[in-house]
């Protein structure tokens, strides 16, 4: 079993005692698990189809053309129709649909025209539809998933780069530190938004959506890692001058051992404290970029795109903006509560032994 440092265990206990943060953490964790298996909850593909005695589970498999279920078309089966058809035929065939039987891309216009529809349980559009009659709940659901995955990937990348360079600067010091500090100062003055706009105007559009998202991630990371280095550099500087590092060095420990075994664990609280706020920043940034139209490529579901639609249709379709704004507020509040709780429980003033 993982043996926790008694100090860390104490910090975690303290975190558990901060109710607001702890419950926020549980809710967010639950949300993440739900999102991970989202295809089973929000999807136009059926969970189970029983046709002529065979069971089909289309959720994670290749698509089933309509001909598989005795329909006359070769494109993806419309399972909602199939369900009605089976019910009407009254034989043993049946379809089990997910609770929200829509995917985030399909235009489902029960009224015949593409326009925002208010939320109704009857059509199973629980949050209504957007301007092209796509289910808002489905778009929010997958939009949130993408935003969260994006934010975690962003945070991880920024941390890896920021810690590596910041640590090296603080530990080695001297010319290395001086040169990197100047480079970072210059780099951090390059306007981020303009760079995103410029880069996206030159990258060819025929590359896949996932590649475009990766490029966006890369660009954001490239312009965000600098902030982390300042903290790492000062923390490392401070630790490096302490006696226990000097002792380690006298004993003959290598640089790598000193950095990874002695310095890193002692600056961990700083890192962890910042993490939730980095995630908040990433979610806000990608939402803002989507809102401005420079973020995730269409038609990727995204919170920012929904917000934009919502503000353009405030008067006629208030449910769009309510849903998107509500989701964003809840998400950011949860992460912020967790962040505050972590900061409090990892506060060095209550724990530091040799500070």
């Amino acid at each position, binding site marked *: 079993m993982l043996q926790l440092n008694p100090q860390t265990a104490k910090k975690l206990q303290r975190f558990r005692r901060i109710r607001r943060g702890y419950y926020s953490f549980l809710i967010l964790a639950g949300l993440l698990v739900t999102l991970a298996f989202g295809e089973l909850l929000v999807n136009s593909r059926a969970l189970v189809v029983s046709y002529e005695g065979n069971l089909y589970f289309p959720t994670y498999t290749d698509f089933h053309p309509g001909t598989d279920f005795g329909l006359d*078309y070769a494109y993806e089966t419309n399972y909602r129709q199939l369900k009605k058809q089976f019910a009407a035929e009254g034989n043993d065939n049946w379809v089990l649909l997910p609770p929200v039987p829509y995917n985030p891309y399909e235009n489902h216009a029960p009224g015949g025209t593409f326009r925002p529809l208010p939320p109704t349980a009857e059509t199973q559009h629980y949050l209504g539809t957007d301007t092209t009659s796509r289910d808002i709940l489905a778009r929010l659901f997958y939009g949130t998933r993408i935003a969260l995955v994006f934010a975690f990937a962003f945070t991880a990348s920024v941390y890896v780069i920021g810690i590596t360079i910041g640590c090296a600067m603080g530990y080695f010091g001297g010319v290395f530190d001086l040169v990197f500090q100047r480079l970072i100062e210059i780099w951090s003055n390059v306007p981020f938004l303009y760079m995103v706009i410029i880069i996206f105007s030159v990258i060819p559009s025929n590359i896949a959506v996932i590649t475009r998202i990766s490029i966006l991630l890369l660009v954001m990371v490239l312009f965000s890692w600098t902030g982390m280095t300042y903290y790492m550099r000062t923390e490392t500087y401070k630790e490096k001058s302490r006696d226990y590092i000097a002792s380690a060095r006298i004993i003959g420990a290598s640089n790598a051992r000193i950095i990874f075994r002695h310095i890193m664990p002692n600056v961990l609280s700083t890192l962890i404290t910042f993490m939730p706020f980095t995630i908040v920043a990433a979610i806000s940034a990608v939402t803002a970029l989507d809102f401005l139209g420079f973020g995730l490529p269409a038609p990727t579901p995204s919170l920012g795109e929904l917000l934009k639609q919502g503000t353009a249709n405030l008067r006629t379709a208030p449910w769009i903006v309510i849903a998107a704004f509500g989701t964003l507020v809840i998400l950011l509040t949860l992460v912020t509560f967790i962040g505050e709780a972590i900061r409090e429980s990892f506060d060095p003033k209550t724990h530091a032994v040799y500070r």
Partner: protein
Amino acid sequence: MSRILPNLCFIGLTLLLSGCGKPDDNAAVTTGAEADVSAEVEAFYAANPEFFGFKTLADVPVDLNWEAGEGLPEIGSPEARKGGTQYGALQDFPRTLRTVGPDSNGGFRTFLLDEVGMSLTHLHPGTRELYPGLAEAWALDPENRTVYIKLDPQATFSDGAAITADDYLFMFWFYRSPYIMAPWYNNFYSTTYSNITRYDDHLISITTAELKPDFAEKATNLRPVPQHHYKAMGENFTERYQWQFEPTPGAYIVREDDIRKGRSIALTRNDNWWAKDKKHWRYRFNPDRIQLNIIRDSAKMFEAFKRGDIDQFGLNLAEYWYEKLPDSDPDVQAGYIHKSVFFNQRPRPNFGLWVNTAQPLLDNPDIRKGVAHATHWDLVIEKFFRGDNDRLNTASDGFGDFSHPTLRARAFDIDKAQQYFAAAGFNQRGADGILANADGQRLAFTLSTGYESLRDVLTILRQEAAKAGLDLRLEILDGTVGWKKVQEKQHDIHFSAFGVPLEMYPRFWEHYHSVNAYDDAFLEDGSINPERQLKTQTNNIEALALFEMDELIERYRRSNDRAEMVALSHRMIELHHDHASFIPGFYQGYFRVGHWRWIRYPEGFSYKHAGSAGELYVHWIDTDLKEETLAARRSGQTFDPAITVHNQWAE
């Protein structure tokens, strides 16, 4: 082409350059020693004697048949009242007050020139016959491809200077000058016309290079350029005249105090306008002032309209007509805001998908035909446009008998699409339902557009195309970026439209001639030149190069015979259809507008060939009604709702 991007393009231009409105002092470029371009102009006239002729009245043929558009119904209503301020909005502050040169082709140009300016003659919006503007009378001499024009001796520029023959000679020098940095103008004014001759101060003749059926229109659709204003013209033309308002023969001027950069701009009616009592002009251009504030967001612009800060708002999009300002809207039901639809007849902007045939796979006609059958425009029309628009059948609809009478666009048909795709080797459906060929290559293309407001159209097309096994990746771009992509020929399939001016017959050379697709497209025997290079910055955005088409276009351009041109036009449209490089989308056979009760329109609302409600300036502001309406709104008094459909010209 200069006037090519349809108005929709201006939507969405604003974000990138929203910071450009800070005040600057470019207008006050120091003049130094007063430069004078006159000598250069004279020298140019002298060097081109075949183009610039100087003769006397004795040289005018005596047997000319002078006409002056008599008998045409007068434009506008005698009920129109002058006065009031018309409030409007622009999405972007004009980048310049020049009407030619870099950045001049923006939305504000319509207020400087297209809708407000005056030329020798104009096309009557009801009959498409010529009525006089700056010309008093004109006489045609078809044998010599020449039109003789008597200038109205009363005509003056807004600064008081009389308009004489010299201003027309100077116009040709001006538009052919390299200083204006506008190659299209340089080319158009040196190839469309072959001569201008001055007989005296108020008599000129203009000769066109070809005797086209509409040569009289071409020869008189010209405006004077004031030489006295451009005296200091030179290399620095674009900066020097960036914020200088050119004296105009038209009704509205822009005063220097009214240019508040980045915030607002206003037009003021010229009280001493020379044409204020002329037929066709006296009942138009009624508001004293046109105040245009900058509102960058179209949703906010609509809110401003609903508040009454803007007098009129275009409701062409179904979303506005049915959702944002439905007939049941309280302001509409109370009769404060009127809604009007007017069905018109004119060449239609060709909204559709332009396929770049120079891209791999798309060079295969089977694939293109498959794509055409896989795009569900009828669904777009039915569900997005609520059935108000109609399917476009060819890229040249609305030109009367020049348009093809029977040809129909390819209909959405999954089976046919799959047959065509199979013929091109795409017959396996992948795990996601998208077709692939034997090499595992997916049938996927990028579908791009510069129309932010029509993005939902593409979403629908993508969704439906997937049923036929075609993957369309969407790319919604800013208007200018989208256009640039197309001009660089970097697109796969682009959703766009060319704005079509009110012309007699369609243009083919710009779009379908191989010289605009490739350098040296064909070898001498008509076979494809293997070393040909794609040509960018042209309007042949399909990279269409057909030897037969080239020959037809040459004949069409040379032809003086209307019947022959009609036949050639039909043949070329058929050829274009067979090539399947353009997938016709939709057209809108009407315009719709919402206007506050105090904006009054003449009986019948507008004219058969009008393109928009405001373009003829036949409306007026009833200031008494405005006060009454505003008071009624405060007190809750209501009027009869007015939702009118003017379908006297519906096709």
